[in-house]
Every structure is written in C-alpha cells, then in structure tokens.
C-alpha cells in the first residue's frame, strides 16, 4: 500500500466505523422472557408468538394498548345485516417483498388458518364463525357468518394477513413442498422465505430460541418505526434479564420481577412502565358434583359437596383479603378484582367491585349454610404459570382457614396441572384467565356457561358451574350487534353470575411491567405484548 492509499484506506475505515456507530445507536435491543416458537403467524396461538408477529405482520383490525379495536389493514367494518359484514381495506399497502395488499390476500389467509400442518394450537376459532368470504373488489370484502356474530371484529383482530401472490410464487418455485398453497408448513416461515408481512419491521433472521433480528420497514403505512434495526433476545431467567438491562446490554425488558419493581423505580437511569393486564387470577370451584374429590369433613369423612351452596362460595369470597395479597405477595403489582376483566375494558361492569374483606360475615354465612365449624378442602394450583402463583395459593389457604374452611395447598408445574384440572380431578382451583379478545363476554361464556362441548359453550368451565338464568343472559348478550348495548348486557351478566352467584371468585388483576433505560418510551399493553413499533425515544 502506498502512503496515499493507506491514508484513503484509513479515512474510509474511519468513515465506516462512524457509520457503524451511528447505525448502532438506532438499534433497539429488547430482552423478553419468552420468545416465539415459530414465525408462522398461524402455527401456535400463544402470547409470545402473537406478540412477535405484530412486528412483522398486520391484522385487519389492530388492538391498541387498552385492547380497543383500531383500523389496521381494514379501514372500516360494518354489519350489513345479522350475518354479513362489509370490510373496506386500506389502499396503497404493500408487503415487504413489494407485492400489493388486497382482498384476495385476506381470503387466502382465512382459508389457510384451519389447515396449518402439525399446529399444536391453531387459530381456527377466530375464523370458524366465517361461513363465506366474498371478494367484491380489490379492496372490499363481504364476510358471511353462520350465526349472528357481533364479536367478529374482535376475531379479525387476532390473525396476521399473508400475501397470496408471494405464497403462490414460492410454491411455484419449490413444487413438492406442499400439495397446495394453504398447506405449506411452518418451516418455510421459520427460514424467513415466507415470513413476509405488511408490518412495521422486516425479518432479518431468527431461529428457534435465538434472538429475532429485524430492520425497519420505512414505507410502513402507519409511519416508519423509531429505530432502524431491532434485536429481540429471549432471556428466560428473571435475574439475568434484569442484569442485561442494568448492564446496558439491552434497552428494554418485559416481565420485570415484582420484587425488583421498587429498586428499579428508584434508579434514575431507568423507567418502569406498567398497566393493569387482561389477566385475572381467580378461584374456580366444583359447584356441580355431589361428591367432590378434594372436599372432606373436618374428621376426614366424605361429605356432600358444600361448594354447590352459593352462600359457601360467597363466604369464601368474603374471606379473601385481596388488598393484602396485592400489597404483600404481589408487591403492589396487582389490583383486587371483582370480575374477570378490569373496569374500562369492553363488557366490564363499572359497579362490580371486589368483594369486601369480612371474615366475621363469612363465618356467619358459613354457619347459615350449615357449616358452623367449616370443612376441609385442598386448593390446587400451578407453581410456574402466574406471577407468585404458589404464594397466592398459600395466602388464600390461610384466609380460608381463618373462617373455618381448613385448606391444604397442593401446587405442581403447569405441565401436569392444567391437564388434571381439565379432567375435573380437583375441587378448588387457582387459575388465571387472560382475555385475548379484550372483552368480557367470551370469557364469561368460556368459564361459566353450562358446559356443552357440541355447542362449544363452557369450554373452560372447570367447575361445571351451571345456572339457567345466566346461560340465557349471556346467550342473548352475545347476539347483540350494537357494541354499547352488548357491553351493557355482558356487564349485567357479570354482575349476576359473579356478584350474586359467585360462579368464580376473582382475586386480582395482574399488572404488566416493563423497564427501560432512560430515553426510551413505550405504551404498556394490557395484553403484555412487547410491540416494537410502539417503542420510541425521547
């Protein structure tokens, strides 16, 4: 190298270095507790997957931080009659590979969802109400439903839209990978070949369990993201995730452990973001069987199941010191719950508050029900599913024991617990329910409507609660097209079935926490998704 060349070389190197540093400053580095299991948006209906998909793909309808519906790829959705909806699509949107977005893409996506090969948890439920898709023109669709389906827009907010043209071209180039475009398996998304959406970021690289690397889609219809690049790293260990933030290896983390909230808040280099979540922790009781497996008399004898008596269930609710659980066990990271979704969400009641803590009243009520000395139960729960789940179960057991219901706690990993709970092996269960549609009606329908597998009612009714009046109320409410009216009816049903019948006993709403270094802002989401396009700088 001549001196001049060397000089030029050094100069170029310096410039490259400067460029690299400038670009680096625009890279958003995020640490999350759990990464996605696939980049196929229809493969696995799971929180971490759904969250990751929001970076690459769009839905017809988007949900804002408080789970209210907002225009996404659809600009408007209007019911034409009881069973048809007109969807008007956004004009001028293109996929990351340049193919234009239109009505055919939506029709293709809807036809693919029930057919995804080997799916452990498909998104079929969100398209099963749709009986026909009619493409009116390139940006207008009519969706027909078998029954009146007022919650169709909530379903449309759940699944990502794929490109028909891209998929067709890919199959044509790789014949033999699948018999048809609707049956291409998830590996072709994981490789990145088909992970092409209209979303705010393009996929750069990903492998199972590895970081997801993204670059901004500067042409995004919703405005270019605040960062040129993003890396989302799964860091499952809580302490390690926090350490990564504290050491400056990442800019933002989700799932801030409750024990570290106070110290992180006190540290001026970091900000904590929080919001009440859509997840309610609650007790479900066997209110159906005459003899329940984990209910005993105080002497250990078999007794008729007292949990069928509404007074006993009410007494249990009154026995819970929810304020103390939220303050002491949850370190303030929870708010006491009186229903399954916090007030402010669709279908939540404004008046249904948490049952007041009243152990004396609870004892009196138990006596009135014929159990002045109480009885014995086992409270079953998971120990790795909800924040502090095992300690909550122990606190609940102490509360119940105080009014004479001698409670033993038995916890186990989620991998065995949920199966056993679904097989009705337990009597009193600690559970949580996150309403993915952001609306209380379908939650109540799943948890408390009389179980009927053919009609799909009461799918998660693990207590087999059954009440004719409630069935009627929720059945009617779920047919009402007008949103305001429907929400009022759902709220009334909640006031009845939880406030009067104590079909389930809500304990608290979990709060969601994020922590970020100074200078990073975000809108904390009720669904606990970390959505990169909602993260900015200041």
């Amino acid at each position, binding site marked *: 190298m001549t001196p001049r060349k060397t000089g030029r070389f050094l100069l170029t190197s310096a410039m490259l270095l400067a460029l690299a540093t400038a670009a680096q400053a625009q890279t958003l580095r995020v640490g999350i507790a759990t990464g996605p299991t696939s980049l196929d948006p229809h493969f696995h209906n799971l929180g971490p997957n759904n969250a990751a998909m929001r970076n690459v793909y769009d839905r017809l309808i988007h949900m804002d931080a408080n789970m209210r519906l907002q225009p996404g790829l659809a600009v408007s959705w209007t019911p034409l009659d009881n069973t048809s909806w007109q969807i008007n699509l956004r004009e001028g949107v293109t996929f990351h590979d340049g193919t234009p977005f239109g009505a055919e893409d939506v029709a293709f996506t809807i036809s693919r969802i029930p057919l995804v090969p080997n799916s452990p948890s498909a998104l079929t439920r969100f398209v099963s109400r749709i009986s026909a898709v009619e493409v009116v023109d390139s940006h207008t669709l009519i969706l027909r439903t078998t029954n009146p389906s007022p919650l169709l827009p909530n379903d449309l907010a759940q699944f990502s839209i794929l490109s028909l043209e891209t998929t067709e071209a890919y199959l044509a180039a790789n014949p033999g990978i699948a018999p048809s475009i609707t049956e291409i398996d998830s*590996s072709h998304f994981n490789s990145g070949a088909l992970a092409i959406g209209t979303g705010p970021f393009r996929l750069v690289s990903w492998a199972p369990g590895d970081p997801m690397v993204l670059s901004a889609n500067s042409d995004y219809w919703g405005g270019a993201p605040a960062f040129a690049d993003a890396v989302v790293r799964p860091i499952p260990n809580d302490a390690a995730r926090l350490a990564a933030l504290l050491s400056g290896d990442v800019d933002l983390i989700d799932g801030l452990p409750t024990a570290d909230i106070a110290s992180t808040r006190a540290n001026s280099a970091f900000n904590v973001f929080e919001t009440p979540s859509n997840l309610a922790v609650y007790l479900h009781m066997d209110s159906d069987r005459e003899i329940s497996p984990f209910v005993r008399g105080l002497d250990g004898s078999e007794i008729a199941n007292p949990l069928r008596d509404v007074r006993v269930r009410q007494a249990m609710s009154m026995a819970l010191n929810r304020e103390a659980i939220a303050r002491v066990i949850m370190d303030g990271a929870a708010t006491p719950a009186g229903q399954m979704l916090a007030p402010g969400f669709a279908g939540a009641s404004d008046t249904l508050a948490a049952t007041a803590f009243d152990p004396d009243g609870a004892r009196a009520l138990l006596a009135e029900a014929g159990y002045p000395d109480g009885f014995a139960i086992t409270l079953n729960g998971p120990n790795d599913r909800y924040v502090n789940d095992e300690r909550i179960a122990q606190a609940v057991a102490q509360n119940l024991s105080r009014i004479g219901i001698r409670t033993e706690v038995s916890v186990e990993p989620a991998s065995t617990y949920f199966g056993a709970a679904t097989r009705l092996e337990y009597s009193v269960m600690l559970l949580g329910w996150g309403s993915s549609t952001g609306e209380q009606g379908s939650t109540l329908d799943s948890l408390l409507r009389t179980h009927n597998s053919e009609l799909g009612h009461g799918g998660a009714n693990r207590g087999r609660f059954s009440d004719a009046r409630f069935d009627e109320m929720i059945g009617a409410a779920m047919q009402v097209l007008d949103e305001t009216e429907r929400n009022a009816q759902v709220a009334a049903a909640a006031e009845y079935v939880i406030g009067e019948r104590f079909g389930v006993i809500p304990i608290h709403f979990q709060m969601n926490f994020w922590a970020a270094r100074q200078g990073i802002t975000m809108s904390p989401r009720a669904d606990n998704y970390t959505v990169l396009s909602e993260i900015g700088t200041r």
Partner: protein
Amino acid sequence: MLAFLGRRLIQSVAVLLVMSFLVFLGIFAIGNPVDVMIDPAATPLERETAIRALGLDLPWYQQYFAFLERAVAGDLGRSFVYNEPALDLILTRLPATLELAVAAMVMAVALGIPLGLWAGLHPGSWLDRTIMAGSIFLFSMPTFWVGIILIMLSSVWLGWLPSGDRGETVSILGVPFSFLTWDGLTHLFLPAFNLALFKLALVLRLVRAGVQEHMSSDYVAFARAKGVSERRIIGRHVLRNILIPVITVLGLEFGNLLAFAVVTETIFAWPGMGNLLIRSIQVLDRPVVVAYLMLTVVIFVLINLFVDLAYSALDPRIRVGGRA
C-alpha cells in the same frame, strides 16, 4: 480392538433402547402436551384437532413403536412446539454448548493441574491451605448463585463483560463459533468461568491427593536414589500416574457439562442445548426431550470410549479390550 468396539456398540444400542423407552413412558405419564400448549380458550374441537395433528390420539405403545420405526431410519420426530425435526433443533445448538464446555474444561485443567500440583508438593503451606479452603468454597456454592453474582460484579457494577448471549460469531464450515472474535470471547468468558469453577475444584483436589500419594511411593524414592531430577520425577513419572483418575473423572464431567449445562445456559442466555432442553421439558415437547437424552447417551458412550483409549496411551500396560 475390533471385538471391543463391537461389544461397545451392542451395549450402546441396548442402552439407547432402554433410555428411549423410559423417557417416552415417563413423559407420557406426566400428561398430555396439548393441555400445556393449547390456548386455554380453545374449543374442544380445536383440542381434538391438535391432538390428532400431533399423533397423540393413538395408545402409547403404538406411538412408541411408530417412534422406534422412524428412529431406525434416523428420524427422531418433529418438535411439537417448533415443528422442526427434533434432532436438527438440538444439533444446531450443539456447537454453542460444545464451545462452552470445552472452554470450561480448558480453564479447569489449565488452572486445576498446576494449583493441585503446587498444593500437593507443598502440603501444609499457606498457599496449600488457601487453595484447599478455596476449593471447598467453589464446591459448595450453587452454580446459579455464582452465575448471578458474576453477572452483577463484572457486567452491572464494573461494566467490563456482557451479561449474556453469544456475541459475534465466525462460521467455520457453516458452524458458528464465538471464541474466534474478541466480542465472542468476552461473551464466552463468564459462562465458561462459571461452569469451570466446580470442575476446577474437582481437578485440583484430585491432583493434590494423587501427588501426595505418589511422592511418598517407592518408585519415587527409587528414582530419587538413582539421582533423577525432581523436575523429571514430577513431570515424567508422577504426573503421568495421577492423570489416569483425573482423565476418568474429567471424561464423565465433560459429558455432564455438555448434556446438563442447563443452569449456566439459562442464566447467561447462552443459546445452547441446555436452554432448549429446559424449555422442552416445561412444555412436554416429547420428541425433543427423547432425542436430547438419546443424544446424551451417544455422547457418554463416545466419551467413555475416548477415555479408554486415553488410558492405554498414558499407560501402555492397560490394553483396550480388557485383558491387561
């Protein structure tokens, strides 16, 4: 030699068969993976579809035989969760774990043998006492706790080393390695050091005990009488003899490092096999867990084979094949 290898092969296949059966049955008994993986709001129909899609509707023995049939053809099944071939998933993560295990082993040996030698040659000295006390300390501290302390100390407070992940890698024959870049090395150091601590204590104690035993033995006295230099006695005779138990233990420990570096990998978010295993167990991803443990058996069989070969290299009196 050939007969020896043949016998080893038959033994290994038998162990693999028993292992696959036990793991398969064990996970089957824990529960249905669909209950863990499916959205709680799923309809019964969706649940049925998922169970059929994963082949979980068949009785367990049919599932097991179908698995064996495919396994013979080299297909250990697809992960329920990732829908990728289980073996591929594991093998793509093997290099990361291998790198970590080798780095930890190198640290343990490079520090453990000299320290053990010194302590063994100068028993009762202040340095010996310090080394021995330190090794008890290393033995008794739980890995996860040390890991967190290491992160807090060198990443959060001092800001010298990154807190986790693999850093920049360089591909050799398509396999990414961290130790070839400076960034990668800084990422590798802490987790490898964390893993090495326990092995370090083990190695130095083994070496110290061996040195003490051999230094007072007849052949050393004889060599001294013959006028062989102390350096040659230690380097050529004593060290050789004490290395045999050290290699046995290191072989087993290396297998453990490879297969069960779970805790360290989780804490340092190291994208290795252990991280995959723990997640797969949590969601009952049976194909991955079975394939993983089968691979573990293969690794242990191979390591034992190498250990046997190393014996005969160190001590020609030991012949591979068992007849010494």
